[in-house]
């Protein structure tokens, strides 16, 4: 089991990238296909630059989505990143 904690610094693994801006759908392209990036998922992945910690990303998201519940943003961001990490889409920077 791989843990993603607020201190983790992650980036997309080689061979994984977001679809171009303006493409018909927001997708995370991976070797075996594509994952649909729904809601704020694309923004979360875009913020992973291999330098920011997950804590900083969550703070930025909480700032950006100020009307949403801050605790929920944290839980859902960690859940998404854990799923992607387990799938091998993300790696430690």
């Amino acid at each position, binding site marked *: *089991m*791989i843990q993603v904690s607020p201190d983790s610094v992650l980036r997309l*693994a*080689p*061979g*994984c*990238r977001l*679809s*171009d801006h303006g*493409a*018909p759908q927001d*997708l995370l*392209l*991976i*070797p*075996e*296909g*594509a994952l649909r990036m729904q809601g704020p998922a694309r923004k979360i992945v875009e913020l992973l630059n291999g330098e920011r910690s997950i804590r900083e990303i969550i703070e930025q998201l909480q700032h950006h989505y100020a009307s949403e519940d801050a605790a929920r943003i944290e839980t859902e961001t960690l859940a998404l990143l854990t799923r992607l*990490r*387990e*799938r*091998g889409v993300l790696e430690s920077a």
Partner: protein
Amino acid sequence: MTYEPKALIAEVTHRCPLHCVYCSNPLEMQRRSEELSTGDWVSIFQQAGEMGVVQLHLTGGEPLARTDIVDLVKAGRSARLYINLITSGVGLDGPKLDALIQAGLDHVQLSFQDIQEGPANEFAGARSHALKLRMAAMIRERRVGFTLNMVVHRSNLDRLEDMIAFAEQSGAQRVEIAHVQYYGWALKNRDALLPTRAQVDKSIEIVEAARERLKGRLRIDFVLPDYYAKYPKPCMNGWGHQLMLIDPNGRVLPCHAAGVIPGLEFSSAREHPLRWIWEESPAFQRFRDESWMPEPCRSCDRRTRDFGGCRCQAFLLTGDASATDPVCTLAPSHGIVENILAQVNGGAHKEWVYRVDPI
């Protein structure tokens, strides 16, 4: 029901420095002089991108045998496609790999024939194993997606644990353990390649244990030999549902093997827009829905999951492309597969034959 293509397999050439005994290319290969030009492929990739295709698999033969391979990668990337290069590694070097990555290559799938050099070269019909090891090291040093592809069969399956151990330290993110599928040249050599039931069962155990141990570190995709399955594979996830393949001279097919089915005319991307071929050409519609299905498929609960299995395999084994895939234990023709398995498991042994390359 409308179907959107998701992936395009571009067989850019049939030329190949390897002569694998299980090659999936058709028995009749196309010559270099018949191959599509760079401009033809650029147009095809553009059309595919506009149709919503996401992934482009550049394959062959050996795609690196095309001198314009860097331009093809560039063209695919401009069409917003995810670019996967399926290669033996022969023809690759540092500068070429850098140029490909610079052009937008996302992912390399490097094939291995075995983990031991002697047998690997024997199965490939070429001295390529040592070079492949060097290529693996070179790919690992660069930021590009990396999958190892290990083709397994009766003569190398007993080394599966060593293959997985190699994959683990190779730097690849993913390994595909693919049992030979019996089409093209592989069907000719089937009786020499099909593993025994005991080997297959053991391979499943090994892969399951390795998956558990390597979770999150190395992804293992495993393709079983469908002759041993209870139900058929959902071949290509349905005929003309998600995928199209274009052969070196531009014929557009729903899969690698469909050219064997008599009475179907596959249109050329030289003559027709890709969208028309996908949406309207008779060959793509022939097995797309359920109207062709015989019993027991027609009333089977699994028909929406496996689509009656593989049309090409049905033809190759029964002579009728509209038959239930004979690997299905419910198929009236399943006895054909049972007989083949009885011979293999009864100790019958055959030598394989090598194929020759097109000019």
